[in-house]
C-alpha cells in the first residue's frame, strides 16, 4: 500500500513528453535531486526526505536560429564511475553540466545536414554506460561520448547505427558477468529495440522488432529488458536471447515512463501508475511478474515516474500541466 506524500511545487508545469522526470539520490547528504522539463526550460530542484524543497535552478536550451526558443526533450542525471553529469537534450543539441547544473562543461550541436524540411531535428534518450554517455537522436543514430574522470575534455567517440526512426529512450546497467554481456538497450519510435554490449566500441547483439507502435520507455535490470509501448503494453524480454517472456496489458493509453529496481514502475497517459514485482521461476528461471499496486493520479496525464530510493519504497510522478511533483511512499 502506498500513501500520497507532500507534493513538491514546481515553478513551471511539466511538458507532455515521455520520461519527464529524472531523480538523483544522494543518500550521503540526505538529499534527492529532481529534474523536470517545462518546455524551453528545465527545472532542477533538491529536496529533503520529507519533500521540503531546498534549492532550485532553471536551465535553458542554447538559443539558435528558429521561430521560437528551442524546446528541451529530456533532462537526465548520468552517474559515471568518478563523477555525475547532468545532461540536457534539446532541438538544438546536447548540453552537459556539473550535477548541480551550475556549470556547463560541454555542448554538442546536432548536425541537421541530411534532415528533410519535414523532419524535426532533436536529441532524445540519455544514459550512462561505464565512462560513456549515450544520447539518441532524431535520425536513429546514437551518439557515444567519452567522459574523462574530471574536466571538460569530452569527446564524441562513436555514432551507433541500428535505428532508422527517432530514438525514444536508452537504458543501461553494469554488465552482469560472463553469461550476459548485454548492458545497453536503445528504443525508437517504431518500437524497435537494439541490445548492445558497451566497450571502446559498442557491439550490436540483438534486435527486437516493434509491432507498429512506438516504445517511449525502456529499462534494463539484471538481464531483463522492460519495454513500455504506445498501446499501453509492457513487455519483458530476456536481454541475452531477445525472447519475449512476459506481456502485460498494463494501461489503457500510451506508456510514458518506466523505472526498474527492484520493482517495476509503469506510468501512462491513462492517469495510472502501476508497480509490478519481478521474479524468476525457480524451475525454469523464466521471468515472472505479479501486480503489486495501482495508483490513479486523477485527471493527470502522467509524463514522468521514478523511484526515489533504491528499495522502491517511494516514488515520484510528474504530469502534463501539473506544477508539482507528486510523491508516494509505502506504508
Amino acid at each position, binding site marked *: 500500500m502506498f500513501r500520497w506524500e507532500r507534493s513538491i511545487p514546481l*515553478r*513551471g508545469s511539466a*511538458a*507532455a*513528453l515521455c520520461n519527464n522526470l529524472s531523480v538523483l539520490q544522494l543518500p550521503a547528504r540526505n538529499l534527492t535531486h529532481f529534474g523536470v522539463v*517545462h518546455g*524551453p*526550460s528545465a527545472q532542477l530542484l533538491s529536496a529533503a526526505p520529507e519533500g521540503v524543497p531546498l534549492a532550485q535552478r532553471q536551465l535553458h536550451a542554447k538559443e539558435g536560429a*528558429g*521561430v*521560437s*526558443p528551442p*524546446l528541451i526533450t529530456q533532462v537526465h542525471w548520468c552517474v559515471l564511475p568518478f563523477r555525475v553529469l547532468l545532461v540536457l537534450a534539446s532541438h538544438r543539441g546536447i548540453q552537459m553540466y556539473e550535477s548541480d547544473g551550475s556549470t556547463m562543461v560541454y555542448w554538442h550541436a546536432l548536425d541537421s545536414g541530411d534532415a528533410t*524540411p*519535414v*523532419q*524535426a531535428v*532533436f536529441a532524445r534518450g540519455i544514459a550512462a554506460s561505464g565512462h560513456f554517455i549515450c544520447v539518441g537522436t532524431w535520425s536513429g543514430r546514437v551518439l557515444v561520448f567519452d567522459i574523462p574522470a574530471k574536466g571538460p575534455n569530452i569527446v564524441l567517440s562513436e555514432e551507433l547505427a541500428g535505428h532508422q*526512426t*527517432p530514438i*525514444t529512450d536508452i537504458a543501461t546497467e553494469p554488465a552482469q558477468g560472463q553469461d550476459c554481456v548485454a548492458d545497453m538497450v536503445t528504443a*525508437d*519510435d*517504431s518500437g524497435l529495440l537494439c541490445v548492445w554490449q558497451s566497450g571502446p566500441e559498442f557491439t550490436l547483439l540483438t534486435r527486437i522488432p516493434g509491432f*507498429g*507502435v*512506438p516504445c*517511449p520507455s525502456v529499462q534494463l535490470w539484471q538481464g531483463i529488458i522492460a519495454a513500455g509501448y*504506445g*498501446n*499501453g*503494453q509492457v513487455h519483458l524480454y530476456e536481454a541475452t*536471447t531477445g*525472447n*519475449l*517472456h*512476459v*506481456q*502485460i*496489458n498494463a*494501461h*489503457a*493509453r*500510451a506508456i510514458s515512463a518506466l523505472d526498474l529496481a527492484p520493482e517495476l514502475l509503469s506510468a501512462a497517459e*491513462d*492517469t*495510472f501508475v502501476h508497480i509490478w514485482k519481478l521474479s524468476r521461476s525457480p524451475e*525454469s528461471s*523464466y521471468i515472472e511478474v*505479479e*501486480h503489486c499496486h*495501482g495508483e*490513479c493520479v*486523477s*485527471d*493527470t*496525464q502522467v509524463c514522468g515516474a521514478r523511484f526515489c530510493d533504491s528499495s522502491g519504497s517511494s516514488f515520484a510522478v510528474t504530469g*502534463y*500541466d501539473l*506544477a508539482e511533483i507528486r510523491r508516494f511512499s509505502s506504508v
Partner: protein
Amino acid sequence: MSMRTLPLLFLNLGGEMLYILDQRLRAQHIPGDKARKVLNDIISTMFNRKFMEELFKPQELYSKKALRTIYERLAHASIMKLNQASMDKLYDLMTMAFKYQVLLCPRPKDVLLVTFNHLDTIKGFIRDSPTILQQVDETFRQLIEIYGGLSAGEFQLIRQTLLIFFQDLHIRVSMFLKDKVQNNNGRFVLPVSGPVPWGTELPGLIRMFNNKGEEVKRIEFKHGGNYVRAPKEGSFELYGDRVLKLGTNMYSLNRPVETHMSGSSKNLASWTQESIAPNPLAKEELNFLARLMGGMEIKKPSGPEPGFRLNLFTSDEEEEQAALTRPEELSHEVINIQATQDQQRSEELARIMGEFEITEQPRLNTSKGDDLLAMMDEL
C-alpha cells in the same frame, strides 16, 4: 517539435471558431441570408488555395499571439465585426475546446479524425456553395495524402507539440463545467472508463511465455479503471463514420457560451517566454504572418450589404465589463512590430494589409485595443 502540426492546429481551431460564430449568429437572430454569407466568406477565405499552400509547408508552430492575428483577420473576412472583448472570448473558447479534444483523443492518430469531424461539419455549413465545397474537399484530400501514411510515432510527436502549445491554459468554460468535463480548477476530467483506443487491449492481463514463445501462465489483475473494447475504427476516408465524437459541434443545442476569467492558472504569465520578453521573435512571426496573409484573399465588402457587429456576450454592457476586467496575463496582445527594421518587409505587409478593406473598427476604451491594422496605418 513536429513540423507538420500547423495545418491540424489551424483547421481544428478554425472549425471551433465557425461552430461558435454559427451559434452566436443564431442567438443574436441575424437574418439567415446574412449569417450564411458570413460563414461562406470566412470558410472560403480559410480554404483559399494559396493560403492552404503556405499553411501546409513544413514549419514550426508559431505563438498563440501570432495565430490569434490570423483568426482575427479571418473573423473579419466578411460583413461581420467583433470587438476586442468578443474576439478575446472567441479565441479562448476555440483554444480550450481544441485543447480538450487533443487531450481526450484515445490514440495520437485520432486527432486526424477530430480534424475530419470539423471538416465534415464545415461542409454542412456550405453545402449550397459548390465552389467552396470543392476547396474544402481539396484540403481534405491533401490531409489524407499527407497524414494518412504517418506512423504512430510521428502522430505522438504531433500530439506532444500540440500539448506544448496548449500548456498552462486553464480557462474555465461554463459549458464544460456544466457537462462535468472540466473541473473548477480549470483542468479537464480524464475519464478512466469507456472504450480503449483502437489497437489497445483491455488492461488487466499478464501473459507469460517460455523460450519457444508458448504461453505458460496467465494472470489477471485489477487495473483500477472500467474500460470496454473499442467498437470499431473511425474512417479516414473522404466520407465515412468517424466514430469519435470529439470535434463535432457541441454548440448546436444553442447553449450560452460563457468563460470565467478568474481561477485560471497563475503560472501563465511568469514562465512563458513570449509574454515577458519584448518579443524579440516578432520579425520571424511577422514573416510568417505576411506569407500566410499574403495568401489570404479577403473580398472587399461590395454592394449595399451593411456590416453588423457580433457580440460573444449576452449584452453590450457585459462585453464592456469583460474588456475592463480581463486579467493582464490573459490579454492577447497583438505582436508589437515597432522593433522591425526590415523596411521592405514592413512595406510589403502594409501593402497586404492595405488590401483588406475594413470599415472603421469601434474602439473600446482599453489600452489593449491596438491591433495590427492600426499599427500598419501608423508606419
